[in-house]
């Protein structure tokens, strides 16, 4: 066997780079904005204030929530937001 000058190791990763996504295009109209509560304590306090400020400026607000902060938002929640709203604000809390 010839002496190796390099050492070969096997890639321990899944060999997939997370997909890089460009920012979505800015919506021309911000009429309806979703506010998502991820269900952390006092997230509602922050979102209540945001809702007040948005309504003052003439926006419609749709309040929605994840079932639990520990898990990704279910597809239905994401789809509802995408269908009904122009933009979304998520309160991460903590």
């Amino acid at each position, binding site marked *: 066997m010839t002496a190796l000058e390099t050492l*070969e*190791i096997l890639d321990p990763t899944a060999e997939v780079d997370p997909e890089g996504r460009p920012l979505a295009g800015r919506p021309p109209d911000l009429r309806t904005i979703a506010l998502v509560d991820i269900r952390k304590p006092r997230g509602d306090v922050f979102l209540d204030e945001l809702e007040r400020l948005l309504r003052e400026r003439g926006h419609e607000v749709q309040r929605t929530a994840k079932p639990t902060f*520990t898990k*990704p938002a279910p597809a239905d929640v994401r789809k509802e937001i995408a269908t009904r709203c122009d933009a979304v604000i998520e309160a991460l809390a903590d």
Partner: protein
Amino acid sequence: MAAELLVLVKHDCEVCDQVLPVLDAAAVAGAPLRILSQSSPEDTAAQARRVGLRSVPDTDVDLEVSARFDPDAVPTVVLLDGGEERGRVEGLHRARLAELAGRAGAELALDGLPELRPGCASRTRDPDVAATLAARRARAEGRLRARALELGALEDPFEALHDRGLTDGLPGVPPTPERVVGMLEYTGRDPQDVVGAVPPYGGDATVEKVAINAVMAGCPGEALPIVLAAVEAACVESFAWHGLIATTYPAGPTVVVSGPLAAETGMNAEGNALGQGNRANVTIGRTLQLVGRNVGGGRPGVEDRATHGQMGKLGSCFAERLDETAPWPGLAQDRGVPADETGVTLMATEGPRVIVDQLAREPEGLCASLALALESVAHPKQRLAFDALLVVGPEHGRVFREAGWDRARVQERLFELTTSPAGELARGAGGSPEGIEPRFVSDPDMPVAKFAGPDRILLAHAGGDAGLFSMVYGSWAAGEIGSAPVTVSVEPWR
């Protein structure tokens, strides 16, 4: 195509030295004969000079031809016809060699050589070479599919693993194809079987990828089936590994191994079982975390948002002590794994802490002590949101064993005793703003349970003979709202 003879030799073999001049003379005389040496060109040339050959044999580069014919010993003479093997002689066997050569129309001047002499081990049988050839074969057959990373001659492989972001802060064993193929010997599963999709990015944990990370973690091969079972459990949706990786909470997966394979693997269930010093305990947990980092892509400070973290996130694993000191059967067996199998229970936990009770000698008093300490999981005012894994030490376990209290009875009693009056748990009580919202507190004397049920206090048995201690691991956000413990059998991964 005419018949021909292929001869495999090596330089440091006396039998080759004896046979080579005869073969060399036959080749010079025009016999259809090709000699290949398993040694380097320099060693082969030196051997040719030493034994007086007229031509220097070619070299079997990278042992490709030797690997194909896979002889036990050299010299090996193979009769080929149209490239197909029609017969062979390994070692020196005059009569058989003469017969084989005759079939190729060649005559060998074998007079004066011993009648029979075993050859020397083929280079392909050297352990290091055999491992390389096994790796090459695994690659050719599609059992190894991971991308090969070339580390430069001047690169320190340990530093390179750090530099490429593939480790957890401790050195990793470089996962060479040879080591990975050796690791894969310890499971009967196909290396391309998918164990699970690992969050946060959903990378496929194939058996091969888990084995690569097991090599890096320093895992003994015997423990690979346990690791595979742990990865399977972690990828079950109700375990919520995605959230566990991403959370600010200082929690990670703790692996509890229950059953005979724990001892066969050399795991420690006794003194210091939750600590350092036992290779299998430490590296099983570490492999699971490396799989999360490398296959799932969860990196501390990036996807992993832990506020503090804790050292158990390097890896947290221990074996249950199920010998004659055990007060009850194993945790995995209690959760459905057959009695003669080994099971793995995975739970999302913080680091463990001790509960000291040196005076209780009867189960009621011991439960009262344990319950007091269990109230503090996460925060005494946190109710129904966290589970606990209570690791009962043998000196505490003896109290339950001698009193005949089984696991369910202890769980039930601990559940009853971990209640507090609502008034003490409300926001503001005791001066602490944390707690239950006042609108939920109609009666300040109403007892409020700490845990969502008796079965949310998981009981395991482990530890050394001396010490009136138990250990408690608080969970991460538990059950439906977070992570539920998952138990699987190791059997399918053996």
